[in-house]
Protein backbone atom coordinates (compact mmCIF):
# COMPACT_ATOMS: atom_id res chain seq x y z
CA UNK A 1 0.00 0.00 0.00
CA UNK A 2 1.14 3.50 -0.80
CA UNK A 3 0.26 5.49 2.32
CA UNK A 4 -0.63 8.77 0.63
CA UNK A 5 -2.60 10.04 -2.33
CA UNK A 6 -1.43 11.49 -5.61
CA UNK A 7 -3.07 12.60 -8.80
CA UNK A 8 -2.85 10.20 -11.73
CA UNK A 9 -3.00 11.48 -15.32
CA UNK A 10 -2.90 9.40 -18.47
CA UNK A 11 -2.65 11.71 -21.50
CA UNK A 12 -3.23 10.45 -25.06
CA UNK A 13 -0.82 12.80 -26.82
CA UNK A 14 2.48 14.61 -26.29
CA UNK A 15 0.70 17.96 -26.15
CA UNK A 16 -1.75 16.71 -23.53
CA UNK A 17 1.13 15.44 -21.42
CA UNK A 18 2.96 18.78 -21.59
CA UNK A 19 -0.24 20.64 -20.75
CA UNK A 20 -0.94 18.26 -17.87
CA UNK A 21 2.54 18.96 -16.48
CA UNK A 22 2.00 22.72 -16.62
CA UNK A 23 -1.44 22.41 -15.05
CA UNK A 24 -0.12 20.27 -12.21
CA UNK A 25 2.68 22.80 -11.65
CA UNK A 26 0.08 25.57 -11.36
CA UNK A 27 -1.70 23.41 -8.78
CA UNK A 28 1.56 23.20 -6.83
CA UNK A 29 1.98 19.45 -7.24
CA UNK A 30 5.41 17.88 -7.59
CA UNK A 31 5.03 15.81 -10.72
CA UNK A 32 6.78 12.73 -12.05
CA UNK A 33 6.50 11.11 -15.44
CA UNK A 34 5.50 7.49 -15.06
CA UNK A 35 6.52 4.58 -17.29
CA UNK A 36 6.43 1.09 -15.79
CA UNK A 37 6.30 2.52 -12.28
CA UNK A 38 8.49 -0.12 -10.60
CA UNK A 39 10.88 2.36 -9.03
CA UNK A 40 8.26 5.02 -8.30
CA UNK A 41 5.93 2.55 -6.56
CA UNK A 42 8.79 1.00 -4.58
CA UNK A 43 10.07 4.38 -3.43
CA UNK A 44 6.58 5.68 -2.62
CA UNK A 45 5.85 2.66 -0.48
CA UNK A 46 9.20 2.96 1.24
CA UNK A 47 8.66 6.62 2.03
CA UNK A 48 11.59 8.02 0.05
CA UNK A 49 9.39 9.63 -2.58
CA UNK A 50 6.10 11.46 -2.29
CA UNK A 51 4.96 12.92 -5.60
CA UNK A 52 1.86 15.07 -5.79
CA UNK A 53 1.07 13.68 -9.23
CA UNK A 54 2.23 11.19 -11.82
CA UNK A 55 1.76 11.42 -15.57
CA UNK A 56 1.54 7.97 -17.17
CA UNK A 57 3.10 8.07 -20.64
CA UNK A 58 1.93 4.66 -21.84
CA UNK A 59 -1.12 5.88 -23.81
CA UNK A 60 0.94 8.22 -26.00
CA UNK A 61 1.60 6.60 -29.40
CA UNK A 62 5.01 8.29 -29.87
CA UNK A 63 6.13 6.89 -26.51
CA UNK A 64 5.12 3.32 -27.37
CA UNK A 65 6.31 3.26 -30.99
CA UNK A 66 8.64 0.49 -32.11
CA UNK A 67 9.43 0.55 -35.78
CA UNK A 68 12.24 0.39 -38.25
CA UNK A 69 12.52 2.74 -41.23
CA UNK A 70 15.25 3.18 -43.82
CA UNK A 71 17.58 5.03 -41.46
CA UNK A 72 16.71 4.26 -37.86
CA UNK A 73 15.10 1.95 -35.37
CA UNK A 74 12.67 4.08 -33.36
CA UNK A 75 11.95 2.89 -29.83
CA UNK A 76 9.44 4.76 -27.68
CA UNK A 77 10.52 5.41 -24.12
CA UNK A 78 7.47 3.54 -22.80
CA UNK A 79 8.46 0.32 -24.57
CA UNK A 80 9.26 -2.37 -22.04
CA UNK A 81 12.63 -4.05 -21.71
CA UNK A 82 11.00 -7.35 -22.59
CA UNK A 83 9.49 -5.90 -25.76
CA UNK A 84 12.92 -4.69 -26.88
CA UNK A 85 14.56 -7.98 -26.00
CA UNK A 86 11.91 -10.15 -27.69
CA UNK A 87 12.05 -8.06 -30.87
CA UNK A 88 15.70 -9.07 -31.41
CA UNK A 89 16.10 -6.04 -33.71
CA UNK A 90 19.00 -4.46 -31.83
CA UNK A 91 20.73 -7.47 -30.24
CA UNK A 92 23.12 -5.50 -28.01
CA UNK A 93 20.30 -3.47 -26.47
CA UNK A 94 18.27 -6.67 -26.17
CA UNK A 95 21.06 -8.30 -24.17
CA UNK A 96 21.36 -5.28 -21.89
CA UNK A 97 17.58 -5.28 -21.33
CA UNK A 98 17.61 -9.00 -20.62
CA UNK A 99 20.05 -8.60 -17.73
CA UNK A 100 18.12 -5.91 -15.85
CA UNK A 101 15.91 -7.25 -13.04
CA UNK A 102 13.96 -10.48 -13.67
CA UNK A 103 11.82 -11.47 -16.62
CA UNK A 104 8.47 -10.52 -15.09
CA UNK A 105 9.79 -7.11 -14.11
CA UNK A 106 11.23 -6.71 -17.61
CA UNK A 107 7.61 -6.89 -18.77
CA UNK A 108 6.98 -3.67 -16.80
CA UNK A 109 10.21 -1.68 -16.70
CA UNK A 110 10.42 0.74 -19.60
CA UNK A 111 13.41 2.01 -21.52
CA UNK A 112 12.69 5.56 -20.36
CA UNK A 113 12.31 4.42 -16.78
CA UNK A 114 15.67 2.66 -16.82
CA UNK A 115 17.40 5.71 -18.31
CA UNK A 116 15.77 8.22 -15.94
CA UNK A 117 15.63 6.15 -12.76
CA UNK A 118 17.60 6.84 -9.62
CA UNK A 119 19.45 3.51 -9.71
CA UNK A 120 22.84 4.53 -10.99
CA UNK A 121 23.58 1.62 -13.33
CA UNK A 122 21.17 2.58 -16.17
CA UNK A 123 22.47 -0.28 -18.27
CA UNK A 124 20.29 0.44 -21.30
CA UNK A 125 22.34 3.61 -21.81
CA UNK A 126 25.44 1.64 -22.84
CA UNK A 127 24.23 0.44 -26.28
CA UNK A 128 22.77 3.89 -26.94
CA UNK A 129 26.07 5.62 -26.08
CA UNK A 130 27.91 3.31 -28.48
CA UNK A 131 25.55 3.45 -31.44
CA UNK A 132 25.36 7.17 -32.31
CA UNK A 133 21.75 7.07 -31.14
CA UNK A 134 19.56 10.15 -31.19
CA UNK A 135 16.89 10.97 -28.63
CA UNK A 136 13.65 12.94 -28.86
CA UNK A 137 12.67 14.88 -25.77
CA UNK A 138 9.42 16.70 -25.12
CA UNK A 139 8.37 19.21 -22.52
CA UNK A 140 6.28 22.31 -21.97
CA UNK A 141 8.77 24.29 -24.11
CA UNK A 142 8.39 21.91 -27.02
CA UNK A 143 10.20 19.04 -28.65
CA UNK A 144 13.90 18.67 -29.35
CA UNK A 145 15.94 15.94 -30.97
CA UNK A 146 19.62 15.57 -30.25
CA UNK A 147 22.46 13.13 -29.91
CA UNK A 148 21.93 10.75 -26.99
CA UNK A 149 25.48 11.20 -25.74
CA UNK A 150 24.96 14.96 -25.56
CA UNK A 151 22.05 14.62 -23.18
CA UNK A 152 23.17 11.54 -21.26
CA UNK A 153 26.11 12.55 -19.09
CA UNK A 154 25.95 9.69 -16.63
CA UNK A 155 22.30 10.54 -16.17
CA UNK A 156 19.73 12.26 -18.35
CA UNK A 157 20.18 16.03 -18.44
CA UNK A 158 16.57 17.08 -18.94
CA UNK A 159 15.02 20.52 -18.77
CA UNK A 160 12.27 21.14 -16.25
CA UNK A 161 9.19 19.19 -17.26
CA UNK A 162 10.90 17.27 -20.05
CA UNK A 163 10.64 13.56 -20.68
CA UNK A 164 12.07 11.08 -23.19
CA UNK A 165 9.73 10.39 -26.08
CA UNK A 166 11.87 7.96 -28.08
CA UNK A 167 15.37 6.93 -29.04
CA UNK A 168 16.49 6.49 -32.64
CA UNK A 169 19.25 4.01 -33.43
CA UNK A 170 20.98 4.15 -36.83
CA UNK A 171 20.71 1.00 -38.88
CA UNK A 172 24.44 0.28 -38.98
CA UNK A 173 24.36 -0.44 -35.26
CA UNK A 174 21.64 -3.05 -35.58
CA UNK A 175 23.81 -5.40 -37.60
CA UNK A 176 27.18 -4.47 -36.14
CA UNK A 177 29.37 -6.95 -34.27
CA UNK A 178 28.73 -6.75 -30.52
CA UNK A 179 29.49 -8.25 -27.14
CA UNK A 180 27.84 -7.89 -23.74
CA UNK A 181 29.37 -9.15 -20.50
CA UNK A 182 27.86 -8.61 -17.07
CA UNK A 183 29.42 -9.79 -13.84
CA UNK A 184 27.49 -9.81 -10.56
CA UNK A 185 28.54 -10.80 -7.07
CA UNK A 186 26.45 -13.96 -6.72
CA UNK A 187 23.14 -14.23 -8.50
CA UNK A 188 22.48 -13.79 -12.18
CA UNK A 189 19.79 -11.22 -11.35
CA UNK A 190 21.60 -8.46 -9.55
CA UNK A 191 23.17 -5.06 -10.01
CA UNK A 192 26.42 -5.20 -11.96
CA UNK A 193 29.84 -5.37 -10.43
CA UNK A 194 31.09 -4.76 -13.94
CA UNK A 195 28.97 -4.56 -17.06
CA UNK A 196 30.69 -4.14 -20.43
CA UNK A 197 28.92 -3.43 -23.71
CA UNK A 198 30.96 -3.47 -26.90
CA UNK A 199 29.99 -2.51 -30.43
CA UNK A 200 32.19 -2.47 -33.51
CA UNK A 201 31.72 0.20 -36.13
CA UNK A 202 33.59 -1.37 -39.00
CA UNK A 203 36.79 -2.55 -37.35
CA UNK A 204 36.71 0.06 -34.59
CA UNK A 205 35.76 -1.16 -31.14
CA UNK A 206 33.66 1.02 -28.86
CA UNK A 207 33.14 -0.05 -25.25
CA UNK A 208 31.01 1.33 -22.45
CA UNK A 209 30.82 0.31 -18.82
CA UNK A 210 28.33 0.28 -15.96
CA UNK A 211 29.02 -0.58 -12.34
CA UNK A 212 32.68 0.38 -12.64
CA UNK A 213 32.48 4.05 -11.64
CA UNK A 214 29.51 5.91 -10.22
CA UNK A 215 27.82 6.39 -13.58
CA UNK A 216 27.60 4.63 -16.97
CA UNK A 217 30.73 5.50 -18.88
CA UNK A 218 31.80 5.71 -22.49
CA UNK A 219 35.12 7.40 -23.23
CA UNK A 220 36.74 7.96 -26.60
CA UNK A 221 40.14 8.00 -24.91
CA UNK A 222 39.47 4.50 -23.60
CA UNK A 223 38.28 3.39 -27.03
CA UNK A 224 41.55 4.66 -28.52
CA UNK A 225 43.59 2.50 -26.15
CA UNK A 226 41.41 -0.55 -26.75
CA UNK A 227 41.97 -0.19 -30.50
CA UNK A 228 45.74 0.18 -30.27
CA UNK A 229 46.82 -3.17 -31.70
CA UNK A 230 50.49 -2.39 -31.12
CA UNK A 231 49.95 -2.98 -27.39
CA UNK A 232 49.31 -6.44 -25.90
CA UNK A 233 45.71 -7.11 -24.87
CA UNK A 234 46.34 -7.24 -21.13
CA UNK A 235 48.38 -4.04 -21.18
CA UNK A 236 45.58 -2.26 -23.01
CA UNK A 237 43.09 -3.46 -20.42
CA UNK A 238 45.38 -2.28 -17.59
CA UNK A 239 45.70 1.12 -19.22
CA UNK A 240 41.91 1.44 -19.22
CA UNK A 241 41.91 1.37 -15.41
CA UNK A 242 44.30 4.32 -15.38
CA UNK A 243 42.07 6.24 -17.79
CA UNK A 244 38.93 5.95 -15.67
CA UNK A 245 37.71 9.45 -14.72
CA UNK A 246 37.35 8.40 -11.07
CA UNK A 247 38.35 5.50 -8.88
CA UNK A 248 36.27 2.34 -9.33
CA UNK A 249 33.35 1.99 -6.96
CA UNK A 250 33.73 0.32 -3.60
CA UNK A 251 30.64 -1.05 -1.89
CA UNK A 252 29.12 -4.17 -0.39
CA UNK A 253 28.94 -5.77 -3.85
CA UNK A 254 32.68 -5.56 -4.39
CA UNK A 255 35.82 -3.73 -3.42
CA UNK A 256 37.63 -1.19 -5.62
CA UNK A 257 40.50 -3.61 -6.18
CA UNK A 258 38.16 -6.45 -7.13
CA UNK A 259 36.26 -4.27 -9.62
CA UNK A 260 39.56 -3.19 -11.18
CA UNK A 261 40.69 -6.81 -11.41
CA UNK A 262 37.37 -7.87 -12.92
CA UNK A 263 37.32 -5.09 -15.51
CA UNK A 264 40.91 -5.79 -16.52
CA UNK A 265 40.21 -9.50 -16.91
CA UNK A 266 36.96 -8.94 -18.78
CA UNK A 267 38.56 -6.53 -21.22
CA UNK A 268 41.60 -8.74 -21.71
CA UNK A 269 39.36 -11.68 -22.61
CA UNK A 270 37.25 -9.49 -24.89
CA UNK A 271 40.31 -8.16 -26.72
CA UNK A 272 41.86 -11.62 -27.06
CA UNK A 273 38.65 -13.06 -28.46
CA UNK A 274 38.45 -10.17 -30.88
CA UNK A 275 42.05 -10.67 -32.01
CA UNK A 276 41.49 -14.43 -32.40
CA UNK A 277 38.41 -13.75 -34.51
CA UNK A 278 35.98 -15.47 -32.15
CA UNK A 279 33.73 -12.39 -31.83
Amino acid sequence: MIPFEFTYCRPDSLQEAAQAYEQLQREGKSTLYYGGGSEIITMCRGGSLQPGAVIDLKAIPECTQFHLDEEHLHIGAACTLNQIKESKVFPLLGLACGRIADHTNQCRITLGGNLCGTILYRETSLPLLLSDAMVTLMGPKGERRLSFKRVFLGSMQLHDGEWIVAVHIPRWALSAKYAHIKHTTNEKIDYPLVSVAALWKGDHLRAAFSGVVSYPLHSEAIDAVLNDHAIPCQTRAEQVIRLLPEAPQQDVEGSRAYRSFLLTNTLTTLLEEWEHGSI
Partner: protein
Amino acid sequence: MVRYDKKSVITLSVNGALQDVVVRPSDLLLDVLREQLALTGAKPGCKNGDCGACTVMVDGWPIKACLMLAVEAEGHEILTVEGLGGATAVQTAFVVANAFQCGYCTSGFLMVCQALLTQHPQMPEEHVVEEWLQANLCRCTSYQEIRNAVMLMYEAQS
Protein backbone atom coordinates in the same frame (compact mmCIF):
# COMPACT_ATOMS: atom_id res chain seq x y z
CA MET B 1 -6.98 12.36 -21.10
CA VAL B 2 -7.77 10.34 -18.01
CA ARG B 3 -7.25 12.10 -14.68
CA TYR B 4 -7.98 10.81 -11.18
CA ASP B 5 -7.47 13.04 -8.14
CA LYS B 6 -9.27 11.11 -5.45
CA LYS B 7 -11.27 7.95 -4.85
CA SER B 8 -13.00 7.04 -8.09
CA VAL B 9 -14.99 4.20 -9.54
CA ILE B 10 -13.12 2.40 -12.29
CA THR B 11 -13.96 -0.74 -14.22
CA LEU B 12 -11.50 -3.59 -14.40
CA SER B 13 -11.73 -6.65 -16.59
CA VAL B 14 -10.81 -9.51 -14.30
CA ASN B 15 -11.04 -13.18 -15.25
CA GLY B 16 -13.31 -12.31 -18.14
CA ALA B 17 -15.81 -10.23 -16.16
CA LEU B 18 -16.10 -6.46 -15.81
CA GLN B 19 -15.88 -5.37 -12.19
CA ASP B 20 -16.44 -1.91 -10.73
CA VAL B 21 -14.05 -0.99 -7.94
CA VAL B 22 -13.52 2.16 -5.89
CA VAL B 23 -9.86 3.09 -5.85
CA ARG B 24 -7.49 5.86 -4.90
CA PRO B 25 -5.06 6.68 -7.73
CA SER B 26 -2.24 5.34 -5.57
CA ASP B 27 -3.92 1.98 -4.81
CA LEU B 28 -2.00 -1.06 -5.98
CA LEU B 29 -3.59 -3.69 -8.17
CA LEU B 30 -2.65 -6.38 -5.64
CA ASP B 31 -4.56 -4.68 -2.81
CA VAL B 32 -7.62 -4.01 -4.98
CA LEU B 33 -7.77 -7.61 -6.22
CA ARG B 34 -7.51 -8.99 -2.70
CA GLU B 35 -9.51 -6.49 -0.68
CA GLN B 36 -12.25 -5.40 -3.04
CA LEU B 37 -12.70 -8.38 -5.31
CA ALA B 38 -11.81 -11.05 -2.71
CA LEU B 39 -9.38 -12.60 -5.18
CA THR B 40 -6.83 -13.66 -2.60
CA GLY B 41 -4.93 -16.03 -4.87
CA ALA B 42 -2.38 -13.32 -5.62
CA LYS B 43 -0.31 -13.32 -2.44
CA PRO B 44 1.44 -10.41 -0.76
CA GLY B 45 5.02 -11.53 -0.21
CA CYS B 46 7.85 -9.04 -0.39
CA LYS B 47 5.56 -6.33 -1.87
CA ASN B 48 8.71 -5.13 -3.56
CA GLY B 49 8.66 -6.92 -6.90
CA ASP B 50 11.20 -9.52 -5.85
CA CYS B 51 9.34 -12.69 -4.83
CA GLY B 52 6.65 -13.01 -7.51
CA ALA B 53 3.98 -14.38 -5.14
CA CYS B 54 1.54 -11.73 -6.39
CA THR B 55 2.01 -12.50 -10.09
CA VAL B 56 -1.07 -12.18 -12.29
CA MET B 57 -1.38 -11.98 -16.06
CA VAL B 58 -2.17 -8.71 -17.81
CA ASP B 59 -2.89 -8.99 -21.51
CA GLY B 60 -1.19 -12.37 -21.56
CA TRP B 61 2.05 -11.33 -19.84
CA PRO B 62 3.12 -11.94 -16.24
CA ILE B 63 2.94 -8.88 -14.01
CA LYS B 64 3.74 -8.47 -10.34
CA ALA B 65 0.53 -6.96 -8.99
CA CYS B 66 2.40 -5.21 -6.16
CA LEU B 67 4.13 -3.04 -8.75
CA MET B 68 1.13 -1.90 -10.75
CA LEU B 69 -1.40 0.78 -9.90
CA ALA B 70 -5.02 -0.37 -10.15
CA VAL B 71 -5.84 2.64 -12.35
CA GLU B 72 -3.21 1.49 -14.83
CA ALA B 73 -5.06 -1.78 -15.32
CA GLU B 74 -8.12 -0.08 -16.81
CA GLY B 75 -8.71 -1.34 -20.32
CA HIS B 76 -6.49 -4.38 -19.89
CA GLU B 77 -7.37 -8.05 -19.42
CA ILE B 78 -6.37 -9.28 -15.97
CA LEU B 79 -6.19 -12.99 -15.24
CA THR B 80 -5.65 -14.22 -11.69
CA VAL B 81 -5.11 -17.78 -10.47
CA GLU B 82 -8.83 -17.99 -9.71
CA GLY B 83 -9.49 -17.41 -13.40
CA LEU B 84 -7.58 -20.56 -14.35
CA GLY B 85 -10.49 -22.61 -13.05
CA GLY B 86 -8.68 -25.52 -11.42
CA ALA B 87 -8.12 -28.03 -14.20
CA THR B 88 -5.78 -26.35 -16.62
CA ALA B 89 -2.67 -28.10 -17.88
CA VAL B 90 -0.46 -26.03 -15.61
CA GLN B 91 -2.50 -26.74 -12.48
CA THR B 92 -2.70 -30.44 -13.22
CA ALA B 93 1.04 -30.54 -13.86
CA PHE B 94 1.80 -28.90 -10.52
CA VAL B 95 -0.34 -31.49 -8.70
CA VAL B 96 1.19 -34.44 -10.55
CA ALA B 97 4.73 -33.16 -10.01
CA ASN B 98 4.12 -32.22 -6.34
CA ALA B 99 5.50 -28.83 -7.29
CA PHE B 100 4.83 -27.17 -3.93
CA GLN B 101 5.32 -27.60 -0.23
CA CYS B 102 3.76 -24.77 1.80
CA GLY B 103 1.99 -23.46 -1.31
CA TYR B 104 2.35 -19.75 -0.65
CA CYS B 105 4.32 -19.12 -3.84
CA THR B 106 2.27 -21.53 -5.93
CA SER B 107 -0.31 -19.16 -7.38
CA GLY B 108 2.47 -16.85 -8.55
CA PHE B 109 4.37 -19.72 -10.15
CA LEU B 110 1.16 -20.98 -11.78
CA MET B 111 0.58 -17.58 -13.37
CA VAL B 112 4.15 -17.30 -14.64
CA CYS B 113 3.87 -20.79 -16.14
CA GLN B 114 0.46 -20.01 -17.65
CA ALA B 115 1.93 -16.85 -19.21
CA LEU B 116 4.89 -18.86 -20.49
CA LEU B 117 2.48 -21.29 -22.14
CA THR B 118 0.49 -18.39 -23.59
CA GLN B 119 3.54 -16.71 -25.10
CA HIS B 120 5.34 -19.93 -26.02
CA PRO B 121 2.71 -22.54 -26.95
CA GLN B 122 5.52 -24.86 -27.99
CA MET B 123 8.15 -25.86 -25.46
CA PRO B 124 10.80 -23.13 -25.59
CA GLU B 125 14.51 -23.63 -25.08
CA GLU B 126 15.68 -24.50 -21.59
CA HIS B 127 17.21 -21.10 -20.95
CA VAL B 128 13.88 -19.39 -21.69
CA VAL B 129 12.07 -21.52 -19.10
CA GLU B 130 14.84 -20.79 -16.61
CA GLU B 131 14.65 -17.08 -17.29
CA TRP B 132 10.90 -16.93 -16.76
CA LEU B 133 10.99 -19.01 -13.56
CA GLN B 134 13.80 -16.93 -12.08
CA ALA B 135 11.26 -14.14 -11.51
CA ASN B 136 9.69 -16.10 -8.63
CA LEU B 137 11.00 -17.37 -5.32
CA CYS B 138 10.04 -20.54 -3.45
CA ARG B 139 11.32 -20.54 0.13
CA CYS B 140 10.60 -24.28 0.37
CA THR B 141 12.95 -24.72 -2.60
CA SER B 142 10.63 -26.82 -4.75
CA TYR B 143 12.45 -25.59 -7.81
CA GLN B 144 13.22 -28.98 -9.31
CA GLU B 145 9.59 -30.10 -8.95
CA ILE B 146 8.42 -26.84 -10.51
CA ARG B 147 10.75 -27.44 -13.46
CA ASN B 148 9.29 -30.94 -13.78
CA ALA B 149 5.79 -29.44 -13.73
CA VAL B 150 6.67 -27.17 -16.64
CA MET B 151 7.81 -30.21 -18.63
CA LEU B 152 4.57 -32.04 -17.80
CA MET B 153 2.56 -28.97 -18.75
CA TYR B 154 4.11 -28.97 -22.20
CA GLU B 155 3.81 -32.73 -22.55
CA ALA B 156 0.09 -32.45 -21.82
CA GLN B 157 -0.21 -29.90 -24.62
CA SER B 158 1.48 -32.04 -27.24
